């Protein structure tokens, strides 16, 4: 075990997987100089420019060529720089990567990982801040992973690289510098299994990615008033329905907190599932908290309107308990 940042944990996972399997390679803009956030620092020196490929600013080609390269048996790790930019490559991801195996009747696999740094970090405005995970969870064929801790960024990225399906891997930009204990010999984590981040009795909060820290801080504030169970979903597709529903059934109260826009967000899927499965078991209506449906503004006081904050979460929990 050693303390690693979320960023370095991801880098170590990729490095280990590239050492393990010569068919794993990475492509994206500026990777030869470590990538825009430094997630690839040092890797070109070890693996060379063919496996740490510096690409033009051609998002469609980055994703589309990865599909072709995956179909001939390599395992590309696609760096999209910002999840917002991945929208330039949606045909390649949604129409090609996600569907190739199915359309071709099981011929071919597309074992690629699409790293999409996501979420708000201070004042990056409307085109560098979005959380679009629900879009991809909607698409058959894709796996959607949203790591919230350094240890998970290590274990989930390794799992994503070994997965034979196309994986949308959304690292939160505000977490790059967060440090935590990482066992660098740990095996890959199972995809589709949530993590019980905190045990509690009165209410269940389901969250993921950057909101986990905010939810944990809120639960600390609520200590004495409410015992909150926190589930870090880790993957949105497949999502750990059993973990969420069994916890909500036990506590009788469910709140879903995510950074993405609330309308049509993945919280709606979880809330609907809980409503269908637990109608008679819940002590209060299921609650959701997400961003308002506005583009993310630049000015800090305006941007903060888009952030779900501890006061809102605490109010929602108190409301569930009322």
């Amino acid at each position, binding site marked *: 075990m050693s303390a690693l940042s979320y960023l370095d944990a991801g880098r170590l996972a990729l490095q280990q997987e590239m050492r393990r399997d010569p068919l794993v390679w990475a492509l994206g803009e500026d990777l030869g100089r470590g990538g825009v956030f430094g997630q690839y620092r040092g890797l070109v020196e070890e693996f060379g420019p063919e496996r740490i490929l510096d690409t033009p600013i051609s998002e469609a080609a980055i994703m589309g060529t990865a599909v072709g390269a995956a*179909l001939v048996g390599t395992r590309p790790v696609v760096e999209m720089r910002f999840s917002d930019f991945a929208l330039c490559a949606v045909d390649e991801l949604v129409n090609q990567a996600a569907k190739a195996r199915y359309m071709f009747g099981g011929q071919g696999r597309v074992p690629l990982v699409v790293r999409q740094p996501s979420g708000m970090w201070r004042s990056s405005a409307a085109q560098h801040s979005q959380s679009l995970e629900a879009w991809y969870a909607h698409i058959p*064929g*894709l796996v959607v992973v949203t790591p919230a801790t350094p240890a998970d960024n290590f274990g989930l990225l390794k799992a994503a690289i070994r997965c034979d399906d196309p994986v949308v891997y959304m690292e939160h930009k505000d977490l790059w510098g967060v440090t935590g204990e990482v066992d660098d010999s740990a095996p890959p984590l199972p995809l589709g299994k949530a993590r019980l981040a905190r045990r509690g009795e009165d209410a269940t909060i389901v969250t993921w990615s950057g909101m986990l820290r905010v939810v944990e801080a809120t639960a600390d504030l609520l200590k004495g008033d409410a015992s909150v169970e926190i589930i870090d979903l880790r993957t949105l597709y497949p999502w750990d329905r059993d973990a969420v529903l069994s916890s909500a059934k036990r506590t009788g109260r469910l709140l879903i907190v995510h950074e993405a826009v609330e309308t049509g967000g993945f919280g709606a899927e979880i809330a609907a599932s809980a409503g269908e499965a637990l109608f008679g078991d819940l002590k209060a209506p299921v609650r959701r908290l997400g961003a308002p449906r506005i583009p993310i503004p630049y000015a800090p006081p305006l941007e903060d309107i888009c952030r779900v904050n501890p006061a809102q979460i605490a109010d929602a929990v108190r409301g569930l308990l009322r």
Partner: protein
Amino acid sequence: MAGPVRANFDAERMLGHYRLMNRIRAFEETAEAALKAGEVKGAIHLSIGQEAIATGVCANLQRDDLIASNHRGHGHTIAKGASPAAMMAELFGRATGTCQGKGGSMHIADFAIGMLGANGVVGAGILIAVGAAQGVKLRREPRVVACFFGDGAINRGPFLEGLNWAKIYTLPVLFVCEDNGFAATTRTASLTAGGGPDARAASLGIPATIVDGNDVAAVDDAARELVARIRAGSGPQFLLARTYRLKGHTAADVAAYRSAEEVAAKQQDEPLRRCAEALALNGVGADRLAGVVAAARDEMAAAADAARAAPWPDRALAWADVQDVGAPVEAAR
């Protein structure tokens, strides 16, 4: 329009081309009839009139080489070596189809013979082909990837991104632009700025070889040279083959946007006719040529009969091959 008697005329090779072009033509005509009869569903895009390009290019590919195709891909797929019977069954949506009936005309693929898929999105196959070339290069495999697309695709971003990409990484790709003059139901020239596909390719450092795409021997010769350059490590090459789409955009399109006179004139120039004339001039008898036509028709009629008799895919196949992690479960419905 038969062309001169060639000094180095290879009658057997030309006859092989004629046989393959007739098989493609017969496949398309059989599919068209089945569509009109309601046996084939959805949209199919016929390559009638463009058979020489698929034939001439694939004549220079090995089984291990790869192709990526577009929505008008039946000819490419047959030319690369796929079974027309399995393809026909795919069009009929049957379990015996190349894709178990799950893809249909626009998603035919046959990985066993290096066919990485038709594509429903114009230009999308370009990036898949370029990526496949990057993959085989990474694996140190000596394979060539041929990429078929139409003149309409040059107005999509992947054309620019893919050609640039192939050039900067010196990838083993043969870009084959089948210029049939139409982007869906609109004349491409009316929507395309600048000098066209060859000018755009040249601007990215990939000079085009321009060929009469209805002259199968000319396509064959040009493709042989370009594939040889790729195998020698020269990186991507570009073949611009000018042709004419004798049918509409889809089989349901009557193509009222062009005159009957125009189409009639183009019929005189179509590749099977020209190939037959060249063979006749070089001493191949009419009986032999007629036999080729009849055999192709018989083969495709039998393919359609087999498809008609084949079973529908089992319902469980709808849930198969979506993904391994989080695979959908039929019982969950």
